[in-house]
Structures are given as C-alpha cells and as structure tokens.
C-alpha cells in the first residue's frame, strides 16, 4: 500500500509538476524548464493543478471522447496532402501524444 501510494505520488509529482517548477529552477537549462520536476512537493500542490474529477466506478479508465476543437481535420496526412494539391493550401500537421478527441490528451 505504502509502495503504491509512493509510486502514485511520485508519478504525479514527476508528471504533474512541470508547470509548478517553471520559473523556480533558475539553475536548470532553459531547454529543460518545462520538464522541471520535484518529487517532494506536498500532495496538495500536486492536486491543486487543473486536475479533473472523474467518478470511479471500479471499472477500467475510459478516456471520454470530446469534439477536437473547431478545426476541420482530415483523417490522414495523405488525405490532407491530396486536399492541398486541389486547394493550393499548405498542409498543417498537428502531432501530439494521445488523441485530440480524447478529454485527457
């Protein structure tokens, strides 16, 4: 139990506190500032940052689907390139981790 709690809090600190660390770690190279992490931040600081509440019902986590903004997205890069050849517009490719139509992305 203690191990699980430690791992969860450490993961939350490592993954959730890059924003809390920014601007405070003057000795960190500028390129790394957004990856600044602290392990020992109090739990209430971890939880204070834009955390969404999702009721747990004991089942596996399901990432809710959302509308991916107001942009008209092509389904593949190939489709976008084909459309660009016809329209004369450039292609805009947005890369990310996760899925743009997931709530948590």
């Amino acid at each position, binding site marked *: 139990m203690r191990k699980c709690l430690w791992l969860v809090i450490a993961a939350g600190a490592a993954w959730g506190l890059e924003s809390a660390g920014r601007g405070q770690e003057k000795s960190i190279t500028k390129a790394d500032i957004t990856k600044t992490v602290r392990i020992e931040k109090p739990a209430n600081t971890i939880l204070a940052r834009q955390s969404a*509440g999702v009721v747990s019902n004991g089942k596996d986590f399901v990432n809710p689907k959302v509308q991916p903004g107001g942009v008209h997205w092509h389904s593949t890069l190939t489709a*976008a390139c084909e459309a660009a050849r016809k329209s004369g517009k*450039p292609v805009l490719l947005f890369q990310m981790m996760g899925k743009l139509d997931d709530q948590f992305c």
Partner: protein
Amino acid sequence: MLFSKDEVANFINKNFEAVWESVRPVPIVRIDFGNGTVLTRTLHGNIATYVCSANGQVLDILPGIYEPQTYSNALNQFRLLYNYVIVQRAISLKAYHDGQILALKENKAPPQFVNSAGLSKRLIEGGVIALLVSAPEAQKWRSPQAKAKLQADHPKLEANDDIANWKILAEDTRINETIRRLQIHEMLAAAGPVQPKAVTKKLYKEILHADLDDPYLGLGRTLFAGYPFAREDKVD
C-alpha cells in the same frame, strides 16, 4: 484548448488543410482516493505543429505549446512561408532556415514574412504575395489593430491560477520561439527535403525532451531515484 478558440480554428480552416496524428499514447496520472473520488491529469506540452507542402515536405515546425496570439501569428508566418518558398520559389527552403538561424544565434528577431498583396486583392481574391523582410521592417506592415493586439501583455485574467498558468504559458512560448526554434531551423537546414516521419523522433527526443522510444519518456530517473522501497523489492 487552442483549437476551440474560434479565431484560431477559423484561421486554420481558411488557410490550411489540417490533420492531427498521435505519436504515442499519452501518459495519464490518476490518483484514486478510494472513496469514489479520482483525480486525473496528463502531461502537457509534447506537441508539434508542422507546415508541409502538398507533397508532404516539411517546411517548418512549431515546437511545444504556445499562447494563442503567438500561435496565430506563427501560423500566419507559416502560410506566407509556403507562398514564398513553394508558390513563388523566391528563395530555397534552406536559405530561409539559414536566415532564421543567423538571426537567432545573434539574439535578434529573425526576418519575417509580410503579405504584400494590395488590400483589394486580399479582401476580394484572398490573395497572398509573401515578402521576407527584416523584423523592424515587418512592424511597418502591420495594421494599427494588429500592433495593438501584439502589444497586449496578457489577456484579462482574474483568478490567481489563471494568471499563474498564463505566465507559465508565456514562458513556454518564449522558450519555444528562441531556443527550440533555433534547434528546429538547424535540424531542417541540415536535413534537406524531408517528410514528417523522418524527423519526428529526433524532434521529440532532442528538442521536446520526450524520447518516444523510452517507455518513461525520460522521467525514469526522476521516478525511481531515491525510491525508498528498493531493498524490499529486491528481496521480493
């Protein structure tokens, strides 16, 4: 979200053929308090926005997360870059990147694109005639409204969290536009004509510092250093 803002979404729809793709599943942190309350969040900032020609060649890349106004301005630069390099063939893509590198290394504002098409041509025909000029020269091309928008320090924010988050976003934007953009220009100048898949891993590993081949995205050391139960785990 950035693409929920009408101004950004409308600009993209009007000027680009847009597509999004996932480079890997997103890390999700969930803390289950055991009483039905679960807090969920994800790691932000590991995004990249490419502008490509119709044959998929990468022209330029925006690294990471931006505040909306700077993002919109950068997208406008991207559409003018496409016009200047691909449509007009005014200079080579390498020459464009070399010019940006030179300025950024000297801590100067890099040359910028302006639309030199006459107002009637712009309004009636949606015409674009891109011109690459020095940063001070580019200022003279901006309308008073555009200048006022750029000069606005930050949006009207009231909650302390909103102000704190905006400051973080502003700092991210500043780093993206200086350090990371220089790295991207150097990468693309050296790479020559490339498709996105040829540069994605290098971009994420060396510029965004999120190694896609590392299951812990570079955070393993942070997560496991000083782990207090290491001895117990070994015994188990």
